[in-house]
């Protein structure tokens, strides 16, 4: 079932570049433009394709423009954009996975004959486990997912994660900690049959 995008709440706190609603067009667009490289980098971690990451960010910026045009109150342009871009990116990644199912099944059939010719352990170690982990990240609760993407995949500090998500640093740590625990369990359940 396809999930619709949900617009992030329009109010954020603890943002260094907090701006008020009613910002002139050139001001908010300048902020968005300045944030764009980081947003594209983060979106690429999720959709894992640079061109689509750029599309994700452009869509987030377009939504921001529409929200401002509609008179929506936004305390943090950068925070709003991060959350919107992450949501759009996750939805696109899920959609891509759904589209690829049949292709992947075909790959299995085609590759089964080749499997004996490769070292399955080494090959799967570097591809399959990573792909499973990617899916598991996409299915984490939203705040955990966003925090782990920013911290673990993008490599931001906890302070920066908190800033981008509009939350306290301690809360960001908690989300990352919970996400790590969940992902470790997922990996073990997938590979060990959850027998511990």
């Amino acid at each position, binding site marked *: 079932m396809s999930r619709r995008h949900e617009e992030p709440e329009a109010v954020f706190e603890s943002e260094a570049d907090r701006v008020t609603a009613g910002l002139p067009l050139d001001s908010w667009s300048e902020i968005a433009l300045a944030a764009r490289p980081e947003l594209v980098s983060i979106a690429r971690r999720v959709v894992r394709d640079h061109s689509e990451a750029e599309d994700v960010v452009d869509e987030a910026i377009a939504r921001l423009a529409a929200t401002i045009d509609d008179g929506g109150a936004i305390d943090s342009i950068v925070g709003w954009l991060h959350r919107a871009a992450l949501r759009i990116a996750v939805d696109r990644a899920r959609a891509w996975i759904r589209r690829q199912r049949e292709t992947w099944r075909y790959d299995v059939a*085609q*590759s089964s004959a080749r499997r004996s010719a490769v070292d399955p352990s080494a090959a799967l170690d*570097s*591809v*399959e*486990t*990573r792909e499973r982990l990617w899916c598991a*990240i996409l299915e984490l609760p939203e705040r955990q997912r966003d925090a782990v993407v920013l911290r673990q995949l993008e490599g931001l500090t906890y302070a920066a994660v908190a800033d981008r998500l509009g939350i306290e640093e301690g809360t960001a740590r908690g989300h990352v900690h919970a996400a790590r625990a969940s992902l470790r369990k997922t990996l073990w359940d997938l590979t060990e049959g959850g027998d511990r």
Partner: protein
Amino acid sequence: MIDERFELLCQKHLDGEATETERDELKQTIATDSAARRRFDEFVALEGLLFEVGNTDRTDDRRRAAVGASHFDSELADRGRESIPDEEDAVMSGTWMSSLAGAAALALIIWWGIPETPTSTHDSHMCQSKEISTPLVETLEVAALSEGLRAIVQDTEDPLIQFIWITETFPRKEATE
């Protein structure tokens, strides 16, 4: 003993925030408790895998097709695993354990310090221009080494042999400086 404090220490260590005392405590624990060692290995393995996830292009179809990257397709997208053939389950089980063997080696490298090596692909500009944490930079360098290390170390299941091999090959940073 694996408890909340132990897991917190693992996380602090991987975040580069553990004090020397905490590192010693962690080191002592994993040296004397195999379950704790295994849990620590899980932390390190996950760290490496997360790094790889964040640096992989989804359109790398050649590699995917080569190994039949497949059975993860619907299981998480729909929040429900489809049945996985026994053969693949068995492969995956072995895979994860192999990953742990590699992770053990990686953990030791992190523990002993990252050697200066011409094989490192780390771009030092990354950590200067962005808010990137030291552990991630270390992980980046470890990742550059991991493939070759795994190929060698995963054939050896004895942790002591792995430990000796790693420490002999990569002495502590301060010892070489």
